[in-house]
C-alpha cells in the first residue's frame, strides 16, 4: 500500500480540480468494480455487488489548494485558499501548480511590533521567480497545492494531503481485497469536500443509500498541548460518534463497534470538536441516510506534513472488509 500512498499524496489535485487524481484512481480500481461512472460534479462512483443493503462509502479525493487571484506588477501572485489553511504552516511552504510551475509562499514581517503575529492569508503571496505579470508562469485562476515528498518512517508516515488520500488508498485496497459482498456497495471518491462537502451531497442524492460511511482523517488529542480529545495515533481505527456538524447514527456506531470487536480490530471512540466529513452531507441528502464515519487518526491536519500510523491504515481496511462481508443487522 505504501507505494500507492506515495503516488497519491504526491499528486497535485485540489478541490474543484480533481481530474488528475480521478484518472489515477480510475486506473487503480477499474478491474475491481462492477460498474464505474463519473457524475456531474466529478465524483468517481464505483459499484461492487448487489442485493442486501445499499451502502455508500465516501472518501474525498480533493485536497486543500491555492488559486491565484492577482499577479502584481513585480510578479508576486496573490491567492485565495481552496479549503482551510493554517497560516502558520503556510509561510515558507512550497507549492506546485497544475501547469507544473513551482513557487514558495512568502509573507513579510517588516515592523518589529508585528513580527510575532501571524500574517493573514491575504498578506501572503506566491513567489514563482517572476518579476512582472508578463514573465509570470501563472495567471489569475491558476491552481496549486502544497508540494512535499512522502516520507516513510516505518510505522508512521508523513505526507501532504494524507487528508484524504490515505482514505482513498484504504478504499482502493478494500475494493481489491473484498472478494464477495452480499450488499450493493458504492465506493465513491468525492470531490470538493474541503469546500463545504459538495461532492458527497450530490453523489449521495444520486445513489440514495440506506447506509452512508465517510472515510476521512480525524485530528488527534495526543500531541503535547492538544484539545481534550481521546483519539491517539496508532491506537486503532477511530469510530466516529460525533463531530461539530454531524452526529453519527447510533445504530451505525453499534454495528461498527460490534464488527471491530468480533474481528479483534483495535478501535477508538471519537467525539470530535474539530472538523467534519462527507458523512454530514450524506446524512441529509434527499430523504436522508443512516450515517457513520471511520476515521484515520492524523497529526498536523491541513499542514504540509500530515502524519498517520500505518497500523491504523491497515486496520481500517480490515474493519471495512469485516463490515461489508457479512449480513447487516441494525
Amino acid at each position, binding site marked *: 500500500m505504501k507505494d500507492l500512498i506515495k503516488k497519491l499524496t504526491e499528486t497535485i489535485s485540489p478541490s474543484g480540480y480533481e481530474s488528475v487524481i480521478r484518472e489515477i484512481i480510475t486506473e487503480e480500481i477499474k478491474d475491481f468494480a462492477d460498474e464505474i461512472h463519473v457524475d456531474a460534479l466529478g465524483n468517481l462512483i464505483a459499484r461492487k455487488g448487489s442485493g442486501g443493503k445499499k451502502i455508500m462509502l465516501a472518501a474525498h479525493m480533493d485536497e486543500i489548494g491555492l488559486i491565484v487571484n492577482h499577479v502584481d506588477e513585480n510578479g508576486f501572485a496573490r491567492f485565495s485558499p481552496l479549503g482551510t489553511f493554517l497560516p502558520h504552516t503556510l509561510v515558507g511552504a512550497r507549492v506546485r501548480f497544475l501547469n507544473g510551475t513551482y513557487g514558495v509562499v512568502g509573507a513579510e514581517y517588516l515592523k518589529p511590533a508585528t513580527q510575532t503575529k501571524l500574517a493573514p492569508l491575504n498578506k501572503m503571496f506566491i513567489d514563482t521567480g517572476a518579476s512582472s505579470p508578463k514573465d509570470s508562469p501563472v495567471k489569475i485562476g491558476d491552481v496549486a497545492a502544497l508540494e512535499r515528498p512522502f516520507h516513510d518512517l516505518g510505522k508512521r508516515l508523513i505526507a501532504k494531503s494524507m487528508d484524504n488520500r490515505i482514505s482513498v488508498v484504504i478504499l482502493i485496497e478494500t475494493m481489491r481485497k473484498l472478494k464477495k459482498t452480499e450488499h450493493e456497495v458504492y465506493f465513491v471518491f468525492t470531490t470538493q469536500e474541503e469546500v463545504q462537502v459538495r461532492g458527497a451531497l450530490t453523489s449521495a442524492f444520486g445513489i440514495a443509500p*440506506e447506509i452512508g460511511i465517510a472515510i476521512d482523517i480525524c485530528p488527534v*488529542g495526543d500531541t503535547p498541548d492538544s*484539545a*481534550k*480529545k*481521546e483519539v491517539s495515533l496508532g491506537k486503532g481505527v477511530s469510530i466516529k*460518534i*460525533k463531530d461539530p*456538524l*454531524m*452526529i*453519527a*447514527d*447510533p445504530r451505525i*456506531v453499534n454495528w461498527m463497534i460490534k464488527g471491530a470487536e468480533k474481528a479483534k480490530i483495535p478501535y*477508538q*471512540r*471519537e*467525539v470530535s*470538536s474539530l472538523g467534519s466529513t462527507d458523512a454530514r452531507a450524506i*446524512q*441529509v441528502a*434527499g*430523504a*436522508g*441516510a*443512516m450515517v457513520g464515519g471511520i476515521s484515520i487518526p492524523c497529526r498536523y491536519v491541513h499542514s504540509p506534513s500530515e502524519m498517520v500510523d500505518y497500523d491504523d491504515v491497515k486496520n481500517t481496511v480490515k474493519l471495512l472488509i469485516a463490515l461489508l462481508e457479512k449480513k447487516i443487522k441494525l
Partner: protein
Amino acid sequence: MKTEFLKSLLSSSGLSGFETPVTELIKEKWTSLTDGLSESSLGSLHGLKRGSGKESRPSMIIATHMDAIGLIVSKISGEFLHVANLGGIDIRVLPGQAVTLHSERGDLPGIIVQPPAHLLPEGEAKKAVALKHLLIDVGFSAREVARKIKIGDTVSFATEPTEMSGGLLAGHSLDNRASLAALTLCLEELQSREHIWDVWAAATVQEEIGHMGASTSAFQIRPDLAIAVDVTFAKGPGASNWETFDLGSGPTIGLGAVNHPFLHEQFKELAEKLEIPFSIEILPGRSGTDGDDLQTSAEGIPTIVISIPIRYMHTPVEVIATKDIQRTARLLTEFIAMLDADFLEKIVWDD
C-alpha cells in the same frame, strides 16, 4: 391544561441524535390519534392523519422537533469526565447542575462541576467558565469510570418539570416539547373535526444540530405546505427588547424570508377572527427553526413558523405559560379545518 403528557416528555432525555427515549413516548400517544406511524431514515416520527378530501388530496407537514440539547462524554480523566455539547447549550448555568449520564449499563446520577478558580487558566474564573474546563462527576473511582463509562455516553439534565404559580411550567427541553404538546393537543382536537387535507404530524430529530430531521422528512413526504412550530424568546431578565414577547401573550406568527406572506396573512386573520392573542415575530433571515429547511426542501415548500414564547431558553429551567400551548393547538386545528381543496391555488407569493 392537562400536563401529564408534556411532563412525561420533559422527564425524558432524547438528546439530539439520540432521540429514541422520547420517540417511544410520542409513538405511544400518537398511535390512536393518527391513521399510521412511520419513521424516517434519521429517526423522525411521522404520524399521518388522513383528510376527507378525494384521493390525491393536498397534504401538509407540521414539524415540531423532539430533540433536546445536552452533553456528550468526549474524554475521560481519571474519575472525571470531559464533555462536548449537543446543541447550543447555555454554559453560564451549567456548574452545579444535576445531570443523568446515560451509560450502556443504565442511567447514573451525576453533577456538573467547575475546577476552583486558582486551577483555571488566568482570567477564566472571571467569566462564565468554558465548557472545556467543566467536568462531570458521577461518584465513581477512576477504575470504575474506566470500566463503566465510555466516550460517547450522553448526559442530560436531571431537572424534573415543576408546575409554578400563575399557570407556568418550568423544565428542561420545553424547547421544543412544548410544541410537541401543542401538536398532540391539535391531533386530539382533530379527532372530532372535519378536515380535507392530509396532515403529517412530524416529531423531527436533530433540529438543534442543524435541522437535519426537517429537511429529510420534508423531502420524503413532499407536502404542499409546511408549518414549523418552535419556541421563541419571552421577555425576562436581560431580554426585553422588540425581539422578545410577553410570557403568556399567545403564539407568534413569523414574518420574513422563511415565512410565506400569504400563510402569514391567513394565520393572522384566523387568530384575529378567533380572538386568539398573538404577536408578529419578525424573522428577517433564517429563523433558526425547522422552517428554514422545510422551505428549501425538494422544489421548495410554502412555509410558516409559529412559535411559543418561553423564558430562559437552552437552560434546564425553561419556563412557559401553559395557556399558550392550548392557544397554539387551537390555532393549528382551526387552520387545518379551514383549508379547502383548492387552497393551494390561492398560495401566491405576493408581498
